[in-house]
C-alpha cells in the first residue's frame, strides 16, 4: 500500500496513527502535537505558578521519563519558570531498582535536573524484600503502592517542595475509574479522576499532567524521541484485580481506541455527581472545564505501577470472582427513594442543599458528603482514617517482624 502522508504538514510520511482520533501524522508533527496538548492541559488546569519548585516522581520507566522530557521542553519553550527536580523512590527490592536507578541518574544528566533518591528503609524501617520475607508475595503490591505514595510526599517534604507531578496517563486513570466502578466506590472513583489531588491544608499537592495522554502515544513519543528509559516487570506480581482491569482496557482499546479517553471523561462526569467533589477537566477542549479544584485522594494508589498478567486466561475469571464476592457483601444499587425530589408547584427548592446518597466501598449506604480529611495520629500525614494506610500496614508488619538479630 502507498505510504500515507501526514494529515498536518501533508509532506512527510505518516508514521503514527493516533488512537484518539485516527489522525495519521509524521514523526515531527506527532511530537509537536503531543507536547502542545500537554501544554494545553497544564494551562487550562492552572497546574503551576511561575517560580514553583516541582518534583517529578521518577522511576526510570517510560511514563516518568516522558514526563520529565516534556516538562523540560515546555518549561523552556513557554517560560513556565519552574524549578524541576527528579525524585526517585528505592523500594529496596534487590536487583530490581539497580538498573532503573541507573536510568534515572542518566536522565538527571540528560535533562540537567537534580536527583533525590529516598529509600523505604529510611522512611519506614522496611525494605520491600523484608516485607515479602514477612508476609509472602501475595498482596505485597498493596504495601508497595501505599508506601510509594507517601514516599513521594515525604521525599518532597525533605526537599522543601510542595508539588509532586507523576506520570499517570489516561490508561492508568481509565483503569482506576473502571476498578472503582466495578467496586461500586463512587467517592474514590471521583477522586481518581482529578488532575490535582491534595488541598491547601495539606503540605504537598500532586498532579498528573499526562492524565489525557494515551499510554500508546507515550511509548511512541519515547521511541521517536529516542528517550532513555527502562522497562522491567515488577518481580512481585500485581494485584490480580488491577491486572484484570488493565487487560480489559487494552482489549477495549484494540476494538475502539477512543474508549480510553471516553472512560476518563465518563469518570469526570460521574465525579460531578458526588457531593463535595470537584473535578477539573479540559479533555480535548470540550468547554466544560471547571476551576482546578483539588480533590482529596490520599488513597489513590496505583499498585506498584507495573503489570504483567501472567495468566491472562484466568484474569477475567478472577475479576468475576472478585465481583461476585463484592455482590455477596451488599447490593450495590443506589437507593433512589432517598433522593426526595421535592420539587412541587413550581417552588424550586435550593438544589444545592440536596445530597445524592452514594454508597461507600462496601455499600454502607450512608450519605457521603465532603470527605472529612484529617491527619494520621501516628505519622501526621493526611488520612481520612485515624491511622493512615501506611501506618496500619506497618503496625501489622511490625507485629510479625521475625525475632532475629539480638
Amino acid at each position, binding site marked *: 500500500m502507498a505510504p500515507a502522508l501526514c494529515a498536518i504538514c501533508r509532506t512527510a510520511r505518516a508514521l503514527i496513527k493516533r488512537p484518539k482520533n485516527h489522525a495519521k501524522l509524521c514523526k515531527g508533527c506527532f511530537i509537536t502535537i503531543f507536547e502542545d496538548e500537554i501544554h494545553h492541559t497544564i494551562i487550562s488546569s492552572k497546574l503551576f505558578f511561575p517560580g514553583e519548585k516541582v518534583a517529578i516522581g521518577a522511576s526510570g*520507566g*517510560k511514563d516518568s521519563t516522558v514526563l520529565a522530557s516534556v516538562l523540560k521542553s515546555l518549561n523552556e519553550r513557554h517560560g513556565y519558570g519552574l524549578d524541576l527536580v527528579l525524585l526517585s523512590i528505592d523500594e529496596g527490592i534487590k536487583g530490581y531498582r539497580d538498573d532503573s536507578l541507573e536510568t534515572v541518574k542518566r536522565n538527571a544528566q540528560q535533562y540537567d535536573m537534580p536527583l533525590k533518591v529516598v529509600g523505604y528503609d529510611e522512611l519506614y524501617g522496611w525494605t520491600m524484600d523484608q516485607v515479602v520475607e514477612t508476609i509472602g508475595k501475595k498482596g505485597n503490591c498493596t504495601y508497595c503502592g501505599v508506601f510509594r505514595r507517601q514516599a513521594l510526599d515525604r521525599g518532597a517534604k525533605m526537599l522543601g517542595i510542595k508539588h509532586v507531578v507523576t506520570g499517570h496517563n489516561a490508561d492508568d486513570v481509565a483503569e482506576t475509574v473502571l476498578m472503582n466502578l466495578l467496586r461500586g466506590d463512587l467517592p474514590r472513583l471521583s477522586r481518581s479522576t482529578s488532575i490535582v489531588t491534595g488541598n491547601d491544608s495539606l503540605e504537598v499537592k500532586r498532579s498528573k499532567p499526562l492524565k489525557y495522554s494515551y499510554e500508546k502515544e507515550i511509548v511512541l513519543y519515547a521511541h521517536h524521541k529516542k528517550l532513555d528509559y527502562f522497562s522491567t*516487570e515488577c518481580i512481585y506480581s500485581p494485584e490480580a484485580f488491577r491486572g484484570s482491569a488493565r487487560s480489559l482496557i*487494552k*482489549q477495549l482499546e484494540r476494538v475502539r481506541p477512543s474508549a480510553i479517553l471516553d472512560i476518563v471523561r465518563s469518570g469526570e462526569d460521574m465525579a460531578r455527581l458526588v457531593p463535595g467533589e470537584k473535578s477539573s477537566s479540559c479533555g480535548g477542549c470540550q468547554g466544560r472545564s471547571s476551576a482546578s479544584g483539588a480533590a482529596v485522594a490520599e488513597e489513590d494508589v496505583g499498585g506498584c505501577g*507495573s*503489570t504483567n498478567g501472567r495468566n491472562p486466561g484466568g484474569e477475567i475469571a478472577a475479576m468475576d470472582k472478585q465481583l461476585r464476592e463484592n455482590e455477596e457483601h451488599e447490593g450495590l444499587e443506589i437507593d433512589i427513594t432517598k433522593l426526595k425530589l421535592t420539587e412541587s408547584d413550581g417552588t424550586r427548592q435550593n438544589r444545592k442543599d440536596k445530597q445524592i446518597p452514594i454508597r461507600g466501598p462496601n455499600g454502607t449506604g450512608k450519605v457521603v458528603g465532603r470527605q472529612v480529611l484529617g491527619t494520621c495520629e501516628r505519622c501526621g500525614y493526611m488520612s481520612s482514617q485515624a491511622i493512615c494506610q501506611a501506618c496500619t500496614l506497618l503496625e501489622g508488619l511490625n507485629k510479625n517482624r521475625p525475632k532475629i538479630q539480638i
Partner: protein
Amino acid sequence: MASSVEGPQIPISVDFSGGLEMLFSNQRRHSLSIAANDKDGNPSTIAFLIDHLCKNLMKDPRSELFVLDGHIRPGILVLINDADWELEGEEEYELKAGDNVLFVSTLHGG
C-alpha cells in the same frame, strides 16, 4: 531449524523492547533470515513472522505475554520500519528484504 523450508530467504531485523526482550534471550535486536514464502507459496507476512518468532526465537515459555488467541497481545505495539503497523496492513503486511519490525510492550512499569 529456523525456516527449514526450501527456497529463497529474506534478511530482516526484529527488535523487542518495553520488557519483551526478556522473552527473547534478553536481546533487543535479532537479525534473521526467514522464508520468502509460506508453505502455500504466498509471500511471508507479519502473521507468518509472529508465528515464526514464537516457534523458533522465543526462549521463554510464557508465550501468552506475546501472543493471545493467535494474535499479538493487546497492549503491544508493532512498528514496521518505524511506522505503526496499523498504517501498513497489520498482520497482512508482506515482508521485504531489509525490513525492520519492532515489537514494543506498553504493559510494563511506568
